[in-house]
């Protein structure tokens, strides 16, 4: 009876975005699921392209969208030393403003990534941008600088020679920053109004790229920080540890997912945890069918969709049993997104597979933009936004 009482913890994602907005990495609540309907299924470099905007540099960050404004980052110049923050009108692709920063931290990284790797986050009134160089800036929607920090000046050993890429997320008025590295390694909770630290807690010393997932836990807003060796829920307001699970070979790139009372922790194998109200955890299932690579798993209607080396696997969220798998190719740096019962899978070579979900998958289209495509798609107000190496595409039926 006590056990039953302890286990009744529904792990709901926490988000407050307005309908149609896509405010952070993997959209509202970081779930990777959009409520939009009637999105295009087929497109090309010319078909169903409402507009296409040229970007001033490379990047693998996703665009975020709020109030009809798109915020996107890029890096340019020799060794990615110039950092760009752009605000683009979602209706027509016109640039509304652009601000630039000079990189203050190391720009060393794997050639696949970029200094513009973390995705910005917006509350609709402000946008918070982090670069792999540790340059962190907050702007209002008109491009006024609210505050700025050079994190590598504050903490000189947070360098990640492969390239930091985890994205900041918002929990109320606290900006959560995963700065987990081989040198100095910690998580920061930053006051969104001033940019000053609210809390700073040590984290495992190893390079890591996991964007935190936000959830409710015992009435508190908890941020799940995951590394290869553990997943820990920190109270978003003060950094206090609420619960923790130590594991082996957990993922250091994909984000954890939430479904009912389970936390799905990507790894090899992946683990489904039930978190009890006293903070203890129990393993409900483990599965090697759900592999931790680059892409984060997405949960939709009690099923988990996760990328394999060559396609997508569909698992029963309650049991971890594989229901089906489908070949889609390879090169899944971006995380899959689900909207209107369809899975959108962007691939490194530039094509996006659209798969109708059901008891068996059905590939509806494979849409090639003929440019490297490593950023996770964003969906807002009837349009799909794809950030390729050089462009931002708005994929939508022409008005």
């Amino acid at each position, binding site marked *: 009876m006590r056990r039953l009482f302890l286990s009744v913890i529904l792990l709901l994602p926490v988000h407050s975005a307005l309908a149609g907005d896509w405010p952070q990495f993997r959209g509202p609540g970081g779930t990777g699921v959009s409520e939009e309907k009637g999105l295009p299924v087929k497109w090309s470099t010319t078909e169903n392209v409402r507009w296409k905007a040229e970007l001033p540099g490379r990047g693998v960050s996703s665009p975020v969208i709020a109030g009809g404004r798109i915020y996107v980052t890029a890096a340019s*110049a*020799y060794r990615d030393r110039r950092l760009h923050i752009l605000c683009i009108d979602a209706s027509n692709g016109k640039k509304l*403003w*652009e*601000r*630039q*920063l*000079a990189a*203050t931290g*190391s720009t*060393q*990284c*794997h050639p696949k990534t970029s200094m513009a790797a973390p995705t910005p986050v917006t509350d609709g009134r402000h946008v918070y941008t982090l670069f792999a160089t540790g*340059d962190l*800036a907050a702007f209002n929607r008109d*491009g*006024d*600088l*609210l*505050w*700025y*920090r*050079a994190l590598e*000046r*504050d903490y000189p*050993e947070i*360098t*990640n*020679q*492969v390239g930091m890429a985890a994205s900041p997320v918002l929990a109320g008025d606290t900006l959560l920053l995963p700065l987990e*590295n*081989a*040198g100095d390694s910690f998580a920061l909770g*930053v006051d969104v109004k*001033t*940019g*000053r*630290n609210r809390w700073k807690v040590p984290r495992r010393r190893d*390079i890591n790229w996991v964007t935190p997932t936000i959830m409710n836990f015992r009435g508190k807003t908890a941020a799940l920080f995951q590394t290869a060796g553990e997943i820990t829920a920190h109270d978003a307001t003060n950094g206090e540890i609420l619960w923790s699970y130590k594991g082996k070979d957990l993922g250091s790139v994909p984000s954890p997912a939430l479904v009912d009372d389970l936390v799905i922790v990507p790894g090899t194998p992946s683990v489904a945890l039930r978190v009890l109200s006293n903070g203890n955890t129990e393993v409900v299932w483990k599965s090697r069918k759900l592999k931790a690579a680059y892409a984060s798993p997405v949960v939709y209607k009690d099923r988990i969709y996760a990328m394999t080396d060559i396609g997508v696997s569909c698992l029963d969220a309650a049991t971890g049993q594989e229901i089906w798998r489908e070949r889609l190719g390879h090169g899944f740096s971006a995380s899959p997104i689900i909207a209107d019962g369809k899975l959108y899978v962007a691939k490194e070579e530039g094509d996006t597979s659209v798969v109708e979900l059901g008891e068996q998958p059905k590939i509806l289209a494979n849409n090639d933009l003929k440019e490297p495509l490593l950023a996770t798609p964003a969906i807002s107000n009837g349009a799909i936004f794809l950030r390729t190496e050089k462009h931002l595409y708005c994929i939508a039926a022409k008005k």
Partner: protein
Amino acid sequence: MRRLGNGLLIAILLLPVVCVAADTAAEALVRLKAVGREGAGNEAATRAWKEVVRQGPAALPAILQAMDDADAASANWLRTAGDAIVEHTLTAGKSLPAEALEKFIRQSHHNGAARRLAYEWLCRLDPKTPDRLLPGMLQDPSPELRRDAVDAVLSQARSQRDKDNPDAARAGYRRALTGACDKDQVELIVKELDKLGVKVDVASHFGFVRQWLLIAPFDNHDGVGFNVAYPPEKGVDPKAVYKGKDGKEARGIPCTTTDPYGAIDLNKECGKQQGVVAYAYAVIESPKEQAIQVRAGTLNAIKIFVNGKEILHREEYHHGIDMDQYVANAILKAGRNELLLKICQNEQKEEWAQAWGFQARLCDAVGAAVPFAQVPVNSSKKQSTD
């Protein structure tokens, strides 16, 4: 007369307002430069940023000047304020103080990033700005302006090459090389000159240190050696034999690399080992006291010491290597100087984690080699690298 009198009256009445505004703008710039670690001073800087932007294009020269002695964080506060002013001004169809901007760019004692910023603003006003300014910037102290100047010369050299004029092309590429500091540009020039029958000593061009005394192995089991100051950190005696890892003798091994990028393979020179530390020691003679940068690349954890003072440490293993991956400022004395690198190898088993080595060069803040000579540690004979 009456009109003149009214104008004077208005001017007198406005004078305090103008002075207050000027004071406020100057104070605002001070506040932007006063931001400290962990966001200290951000609230005041936020208000100051708005005040500076409110001043409009007239504030641009002062913003640029303020960047001269601003640290990197403050410089970004200033940069974004300048960008916002320029964007608002050009969107409104108004002009920028072009003359003041060009004057600032031409004064090479100003901060290089600020001059480059002014150059970019000026280019938005006048697309012919590069043609006018870049020809004089091949040796510019601003890395970005210099890079563009090199590109301009490269474009001319390429044009001569395509016109089948090898002498002019050769001269052009040689000229470009005198300014080139960035690896990609130097590689391109070296390749083109090679086709034209000219060999370039790449290691000398970049200022790579080629002669080392390697002292190994010291213990780094479980990474313990990174923070242990083994005897070479207290002073290198080239002829000494130290007690090394597992009781092995650690004695100096002279090593000269012929690699164009100064690479030293410690597995080859010291024998393949894991969980070990190697020291690389070089004696550098400087013709004068000079501010330099030691720039190093390694897949291993590293510490750098100049004349016994630690100037950089990074405990990161097998996450990538690149030329100029680590940059540390130092001062070379006139005469004899000691450079010591500590290169730690861990015990990862993966095939990609077996590399143990490094490269290091001495250059200025732009990345151009500084003049120095290497003194072989076992003799007094010098080998010039300048």
